[in-house]
């Protein structure tokens, strides 16, 4: 189980290999990587060009919230391991922002825990994105769809 909040890039392949190697009681590993897109909003045709984004966060609270999210996942599913890596600072299109992974004896638990981790992270972890576009900088608005995604997991 680990939480990492860092400016530096990470290597998704190395992280995945660590989850997939040397375990004989793990049936499945589910992993999600979030990347920076080069357009604003949901529609690549309609969205303005994004040249880069900067992720600000609240040091201390970020780690605290991510640890709470991970503990919640562990209490809900029988996990072998879990990992959350989240970057901050300036990121360009195509760069990795976040990685979440969960392993379990059973694939349903791995999938659900992984999706829970990213859904909750998106609505609870104190990160804010400002997008750098040809027309200037714009703070990204929270998405209703992310709130809905997180609400799926309310007990």
């Amino acid at each position: 189980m680990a939480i990492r909040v860092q400016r530096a890039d990470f290597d998704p392949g190395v992280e995945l290999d660590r989850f997939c190697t040397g375990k004989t009681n793990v049936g499945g590993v589910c992993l999600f990587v979030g990347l920076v897109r080069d357009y604003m909003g949901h529609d690549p045709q309609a969205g303005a060009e994004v040249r880069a984004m900067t992720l600000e966060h609240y040091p201390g609270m970020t780690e605290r919230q991510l640890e709470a999210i991970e503990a919640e996942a562990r209490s809900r599913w029988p996990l072998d391991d879990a990992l959350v890596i989240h970057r901050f600072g300036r990121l360009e299109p195509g760069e990795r922002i976040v990685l979440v992974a969960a392993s379990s004896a059973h694939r349903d638990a791995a999938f659900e825990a992984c999706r829970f981790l990213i859904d909750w992270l998106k609505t609870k972890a104190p990160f804010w994105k400002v997008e750098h576009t040809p027309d200037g900088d714009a703070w990204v608005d929270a998405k209703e769809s992310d709130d809905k995604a997180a609400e799926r997991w309310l007990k």
Partner: protein
Amino acid sequence: MKVLYFAWLKAKTGIGEEEIAPPPGVATVGQLVEHLKTRSPGHAAAFETLSVVRVAVNQDYGGLDTPVKAGDEIAFFPPVTGG
């Protein structure tokens, strides 16, 4: 108490972090917000629409009714957009 601002609240107040000694009678987040709004036009602008402001007291989410006291760390920020 220490007050922190993030994202566009930091831009509007022009401040990332400030030490505040609020007047007597400030015992909740809501009362603190009313006090902070008087500090500068930037503060007033930051807190103009409270529905888009979130608060954390000592790094846990709170609301307008959450108690605050000397020594607390209170942070104001927009709804989060990580991931």
